[in-house]
């Protein structure tokens, strides 16, 4: 008996049992009050659902066993080759023949399809994905991965999954394609952009941004996110932009996108991306936004970005803003001034220290002065000598070896690592 007929047989048995149960309840309790009929009906229904659940647990367990066997089979057959492809040994460009050799494939194997059906292909991708994300060496070549996947007919399979699969398979296949940096056909992308699921739409959009020409970068020319932006979007977008840069393609004007969006969170995201990708050429465009906006977070992000990117033209604006902005924002502005460290803003920092009663802002101002080159250190020493009893507690932090480590602006520096180390991919 084949699997399908076996399942059909059991489904018919189950249906017959259900029929029997309900008929029994209907006739047995026909003369009873409604409460009793209800109780009997609910009991019968519960018993049936319990049986269905039991059967589905057995079914899932059988499926799992089958999947485990297939995984073992794939791992046994291809693990060696997969490990080779993601290792540093594959640092030079490889031909199809060399890859076949790495997988111990004979000429006969290459004549027919290497993986028999979609189930095997899905498992192959799953296993390779695990190797890719956990064992991939920085020296391995993306091109080799592409040739290998082509050899196993995986790109076609993934495209089919993306366009025809269920929601779960669509998302998984898209994620695999993005991770392996496989190109996606424009017609598939267009189809996905019209998907009713926001997640699919966005994944498709980020995939386009990753590799297509400038014409595809008009997504944010409208207020695209409309309050629905999360950290994951920023990670995905950052990943796409990083890939673009590696391919030698031009990055979009992120400052312009920050202008167009109306939501503060989204604007901050684009400003942060500018900072991460060292987009200094558009820094000037943020000046208008800085002057016009009353959004605290946005002002903080722009100030930080100017500081990190060492945009000297903004220093007067920062000094002016330090007088008017609330305490939270002041800290970001003072840090930006310290990073610029032109000597012009040292007095502003001193005012920042003196003109507030907020201990956090005072401490941060002192920290900025301490980090402000030699001039700053001289001023710091002077302040320490003349410190009042109440202020002395601030200075104890600068003498303890453990807290002193935190006083340098290292923690925020970690927020801005080099582009190549942002993502593993």
């Amino acid at each position, binding site marked *: 008996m084949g699997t399908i007929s076996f399942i059909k047989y059991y489904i018919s048995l189950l249906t017959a049992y259900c029929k029997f149960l309900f008929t029994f309840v209907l006739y047995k309790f026909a003369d009873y009050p409604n409460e009793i009929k209800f109780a009997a009906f609910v009991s019968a229904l*519960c018993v049936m659902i319990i049986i269905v659940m039991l059967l589905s*647990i057995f079914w899932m367990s059988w499926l799992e066993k089958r999947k485990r066997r297939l995984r073992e089979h794939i791992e046994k057959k291809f693990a060696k080759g997969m490990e080779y492809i993601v290792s540093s040994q594959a640092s030079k460009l490889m031909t199809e023949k060399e890859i076949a050799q790495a997988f111990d494939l004979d000429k006969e194997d290459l004549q027919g399809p290497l993986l028999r059906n979609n189930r095997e292909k899905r498992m192959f991708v799953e296993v390779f994905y695990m190797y890719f994300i956990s064992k991939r060496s920085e020296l391995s070549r993306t091109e080799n991965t592409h040739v290998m996947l082509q050899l196993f007919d995986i790109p076609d399979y993934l495209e089919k999954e993306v366009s025809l699969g269920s929601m779960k398979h669509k998302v998984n296949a898209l994620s695999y394609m993005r991770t392996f940096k496989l190109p996606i056909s424009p017609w598939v992308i267009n189809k996905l952009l019209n998907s009713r699921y926001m997640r699919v739409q966005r994944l498709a959009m980020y995939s386009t941004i990753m590799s297509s020409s400038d014409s595809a970068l008009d997504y944010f020319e409208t207020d695209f996110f409309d309050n629905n932006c999360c950290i994951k979007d*920023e990670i995905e977008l950052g990943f796409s932009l990083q890939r673009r840069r590696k391919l030698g393609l031009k990055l979009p004007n992120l400052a312009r996108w920050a202008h167009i969006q109306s939501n503060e969170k989204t604007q901050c995201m684009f400003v942060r991306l500018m900072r991460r990708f060292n987009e200094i050429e558009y820094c000037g465009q943020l000046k208008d936004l800085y002057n016009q906006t009353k959004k605290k977070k946005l002002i903080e992000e722009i100030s930080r970005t100017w500081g990190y990117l060492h945009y000297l033209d903004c220093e007067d604006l920062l000094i002016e803003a330090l007088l008017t902005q609330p305490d939270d924002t002041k800290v970001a502005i003072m840090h930006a001034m310290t990073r610029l460290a032109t000597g012009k803003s040292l007095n502003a920092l001193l005012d920042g220290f003196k003109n507030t009663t907020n201990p956090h802002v005072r401490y941060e101002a002192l920290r900025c002065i301490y980090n402000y080159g030699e001039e700053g250190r001289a001023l710091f020493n002077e302040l320490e000598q003349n410190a009042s009893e109440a202020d002395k507690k601030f200075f104890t932090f600068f003498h*303890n070896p453990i807290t002193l480590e935190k006083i340098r602006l290292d923690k925020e520096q970690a927020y801005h690592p080099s582009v190549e*180390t942002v993502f593993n991919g």
Partner: protein
Amino acid sequence: MWLTIYYIFCYLVFAYTIMLLVGYVWLVFMSRLAQRQLDVNLPDDETIKYLMQGSPLTPAVSIIAPAFNEEVTIIDSVNSIMQIDYPDYEIIIVNDESTDRTLELLIEEYKLVEVPYDIAMRVQSKPIKRVLKSTDERYSKLIVVDKVHGGRKADGSNAGINVCSNKYFVCTDVDCIIEPMALYRMMWFVINSHKPMIGVGATMLMSNGCIVEDGKVAEAAVPNTPIPMFQQLEYLRSFLISKLGWSRINALPNISGGFGLFDTDVAVKSGGYDPMSMAEDVDMLLRMVTYMKNSGQDFQLALVPKVCCWTEGPGSLKQLVRQRTRWARGLFEIVSNHRKLFFNPHYGPIGSLTLPYLFLFEFIAPLFEMTGFLFMIWLTLTGGVNWSAALLIFGMIYIFSVFISFFVMYFDYKLKAVQWKHTKSSYFKLLVATLLEPFIYHPIITYCSIVGYWRFIINTTAVWTPIQRKGVKKR
């Protein structure tokens, strides 16, 4: 007249039962919907780690663990917490003026020295005496706070909140065993949320019966002894059906104090934990929700359906009764202190659905059960029972409770919430617990609830007696 009262009572009980059944079915349905959503949106641990570990956007987390007289386990516990796999976190151990060698052991083991501090007391707690950090680079994540004795976990947690510098904090017990991937799993919900995420709950199970190796649960198993076995089933049902179902409509009523993640700013603005409360975790969450709603901000709550934390539960009947009486008292306190939120649509689904459900089916249920039980005795004595009908209705309730517990196993299998060492034997034990629970465990819990309510009403002084830990099996 008595006959009228009798009929009214009977129909009231019947209507209540139907409502309860509908409530449970609805929760199961919601939980199933949540699972379908998670099927697509929650990738496996490796993928989450791959996406988050290298990103500078991964938010930092502070883990707060108050400790009082834990000299036997403190070093193992801190070592276990340090094994968490996450790129940016700090561990804050709050010593609540232990009278044993807890602090000395920490200082010796981790080479701690006093550091200057200037901590704003953002939430109410007993004064902090000193803050210690390690001179050893390996333990740079560790911060030990030595404070004046507060006597409650909530006070220690508040001191930890005052010290923590990250946007999110996790509150846990120092003797909990945390899964290494727990923070990744919780923070995945934070980075995927379009609205401000104010709290993420995580599935917690009993460590009784598990085997622990190097501070991690190496073999997950259902306990062999009856009381912990029933509790394991109860925990699974609570997390995988009730809380997961509520999380689907953003109406999670409770993030467990044993392991829960919160937004620091929102927790501070809503006053932190209440040191006098018997249910400080529910209390804080409800105050956070109230704060967000009253200030017109939208928010999100989520639950991780995979097990993230293991805790040792009461192993004996006496300890169970003590714990559950305290919980019942806490529930009464919540109903009384947050009554403004109940049936109030201003507070969204929590006010209009979750809290009414909590009131009708968790708070009132033990009273109904007890009344029904006494009524049944009276009817039996007066010969007023139609036995065939009574048995049929009893059978329906029993089958229904088994049906709900079956869903727990089904969901657990589907979600892979727990990686059982021996799936078959674990499910067999859970099945036995399912069949016996209505006769043995449920009456005990009902009794504890009634006692807890009574103690709240007569206002006896609440004493927080910690559970006597037997310790978990180590390999």
